[in-house]
């Protein structure tokens, strides 16, 4: 074994046209190390990973593997050098089986004219079973998003790699699956494999990684040993300014409960969930926690008429609602922010103004069914200003905005109808810390103005930091409620999984605490 780092990045720069994505960044990855890479969206993490993975070529600087400068001309070249990259976005062939996806590189390299399915299945099973018992003969399209993410990781594990890059691997995983992934990462580390771990979640980074490197605006900021730093310190380096308070103040404990805004009784959809009761009061932020797939989004979508309810009632401001379609809910003042921003939240190629007005065109329609473009522009300008959307102008397409600003546009759309209650499904997923703090503040402001805020989140720190009260959903039913004094990660995990926390959970929770 040499002392040279497995992978070293020296003074690397990359520009896209006039935009400098990276300028002179450094990174050093030691053998058998789990190295976290942090930075807000746009800091240049993914650009760097794409250069290490052979997808992009650097303009300047060098990449050294085992002390030798290398040119990584293509993803295949990266694989040959022992670099495996798991992208944040799932890139699997949806119509092929799990096994065919996992063994894609091996099949591609194979010389024989016919497929050897026996071998493919055996190999795939071996890789898959380390993570989760997903049958390798199923089609990828039939799997949930979290299972697909696990297949992506299994695919990387089959490559005989010495550097494994994981780009936000837990974004779509449940807590249990994430734990399993962590133990695999520890196992890989013990086998001498080095891992670059990209994540926004401080809890994961601090329980899993040895060192952390922070980028900001395409520049290298610092590398620290995890033991010598703190989550606050890392966040500070990421945003480049002091964030005094990650979460806004909660309701004071002695505040009188407000009037009931949204009241749901005995709601069932006949398949995914049954007999759900919830009561959202004015002034509070009510959280809904639970594992992915527990039925949280389905409950929310059914409340506002995006899915069909079989039994149950929904009342707004004490008045029962008859909701046959989502348009009815919007009319009544009940809106839903989708968890899938790009897939169903915004119209990427339409202008910011057109996005903001999508929810209620009637309001902007003048005589003869024509749109009042001045009213539309005014509405978009006002809401964009109120939410602090950073944009070129309201005519710019939403695709030109960063993730956080896209999400603000999606929220502006909800606010355009002056709603009584907003249900927010993963309001800050994949958003950088700065925008996250702004959105949390906004939600708190709205709540104190009397707008009902219901937040579904898979991020435990968000539920704990933001919400006054959290309902935990397990397998389509409310498993329990946690009030202000009882909110901690352990309590939520226990309710969500229905079991006592495992030692691994305990270890993680303790470590973070």
């Amino acid at each position: 074994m040499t002392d040279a780092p497995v992978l070293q990045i020296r003074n690397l720069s990359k520009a896209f046209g006039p935009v400098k994505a990276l300028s002179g960044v450094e990174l050093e990855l030691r053998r058998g190390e789990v190295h976290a890479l942090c930075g807000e969206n746009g800091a240049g993490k993914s650009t760097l990973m794409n250069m290490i993975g052979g997808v992009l070529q650097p303009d300047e600087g060098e990449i050294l593997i085992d002390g030798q400068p290398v040119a990584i001309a293509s993803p295949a070249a990266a694989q040959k050098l022992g670099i495996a990259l798991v992208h944040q976005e799932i890139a699997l062939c949806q119509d092929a089986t799990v096994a065919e996806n996992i063994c894609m590189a091996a099949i591609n390299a194979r010389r024989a004219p016919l497929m050897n399915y026996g071998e493919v299945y055996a190999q795939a099973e071996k890789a898959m079973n380390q993570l989760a018992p997903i049958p390798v003969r199923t089609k990828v399209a039939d799997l949930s998003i979290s299972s697909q993410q696990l297949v992506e990781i299994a695919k990387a594990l089959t490559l005989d790699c010495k550097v494994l890059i994981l780009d936000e691997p837990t974004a779509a995983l449940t807590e249990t699956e994430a734990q399993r992934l962590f133990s695999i990462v520890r196992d890989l580390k013990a086998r001498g494999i080095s891992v670059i771990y990209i994540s926004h979640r401080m809890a994961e980074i601090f329980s899993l990684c040895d060192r952390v490197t922070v980028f900001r605006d395409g520049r290298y900021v610092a590398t620290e040993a995890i033991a010598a730093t703190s989550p606050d310190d890392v966040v500070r380096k990421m945003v480049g300014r002091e964030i005094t308070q990650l979460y806004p103040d909660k309701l004071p404990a002695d505040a009188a409960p407000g009037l009931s805004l949204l009241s749901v009784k005995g709601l069932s959809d006949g398949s995914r969930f049954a007999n759900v009761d919830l009561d959202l009061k004015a002034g509070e932020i009510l959280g809904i926690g639970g594992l992915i797939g527990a039925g949280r989004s389905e409950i929310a979508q059914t409340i506002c008429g995006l899915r069909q309810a079989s039994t149950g009632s929904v009342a707004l401001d004490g008045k029962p609602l008859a909701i046959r379609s989502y348009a009815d809910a919007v009319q009544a003042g009940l809106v839903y922010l989708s968890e899938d921003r790009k897939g169903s939240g915004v119209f990427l190629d339409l202008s910011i103004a057109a996005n903001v007005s999508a929810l209620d065109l009637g309001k902007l329609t003048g005589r003869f069914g024509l749109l009042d473009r001045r009213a539309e522009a005014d509405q978009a300008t006002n809401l964009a200003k109120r939410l602090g959307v950073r944009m070129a102008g309201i005519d710019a397409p939403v695709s030109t905005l960063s993730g956080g600003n896209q999400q603000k546009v999606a929220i502006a759309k909800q606010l355009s109808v002056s709603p009584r209650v907003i249900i927010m499904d993963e309001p800050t997923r994949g958003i950088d810390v700065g925008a996250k703090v702004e959105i949390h503040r906004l939600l708190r402001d709205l709540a104190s103005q009397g707008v009902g805020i219901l937040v579904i989140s898979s991020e435990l720190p968000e539920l704990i930091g933001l919400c006054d009260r959290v309902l935990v959903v397990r397998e389509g039913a409310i498993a329990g409620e946690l009030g202000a004094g009882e909110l901690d990660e352990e309590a939520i995990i226990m309710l969500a999984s229905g079991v006592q926390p495992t030692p691994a959970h305990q270890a993680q929770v303790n470590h973070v605490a």
Partner: protein
Amino acid sequence: MHADIKATGPSRSSFARLASMREAGLIVIILALCIAMSFASPHFLTWGNFRAMLMSFSIEGIVVVGMTILLIVGGIDLSVGSVVCFSMVVSGALFLMGLDPWTASLIGIAASALIGAVMGFFVTVVGLNHFITSLAAMVIVRGLCLVITKGTPLSLFTLPPAFKAIGQGSFQGIPYVIIIFVVVVAIFDFLLRRATAFRKVFYTGSNEKAAQFSGIKTNQVKFWVTVLCATLSGFAGVIYMSRFGAATPTFGAGMELNIIAAAVIGGASLKGGSGTIFGAILGIALLSVVSSSLILLNISVYWQDMIKGCILLAAVSADHFLHTKKS
């Protein structure tokens, strides 16, 4: 990732500029072609030739309007040529059975709308895609035309002069066909930019899921746009009948390709969400100027399809190049 940096650029969005560039670019190409042709052929720069060119794409232009809106919603209609013919044949047959030509034409247009409604049903209720549904409709409707006419053209020389005037007459030297075309284009171009109902077409085509999550009934939107496209095809069909004084059961075969090509050259995306009527009309004008030029240059008509195909490829490649360069 570098998007947020880009968003701080000049205030007018790059997207709007690109869209207007597409139309400006087409105008420049058409003008350049016209100037070049005016040197190459003394007949090109005459009112007679221009009128002929305008006439040649005016009726097709009405179908292009419907197709463009359908492309914006994310659909496509391969049956437009068949539906044009169907409207012609139905109206013609009813006229021959003794109905007055105006009523016969209205029934022909209504029958075309009905075909659109059936396609809309299969797309929205059954859940098939526009491509397959309209491919089937193209063949079925063509078959219907052959059944109705028993395969032989209907001779309609007995059509009253007032009806024939739509396709053959003119006002102050301007053919009615061109006037109708300009009015249809002006109406739909305006509506598409300004009417609330048509804004929903853009929402649905840009991101159907997000449109649903905004309370828009996307199936209704897709249904009515499908009906609209077929209705405009039917309308074009009766104008053709008036123009030709005949109804041929094979008329309009292959027309759909010209029409889709025109819309795409004009900037409509096959993925939905973008397109303009003005652009599409420039697209069909370009194709028509090229056809006319080839004829005046005495180039064999056999070259026409090949050259049109190359123009389509060039337009789409240019678009692709501009878009990938942008991101």
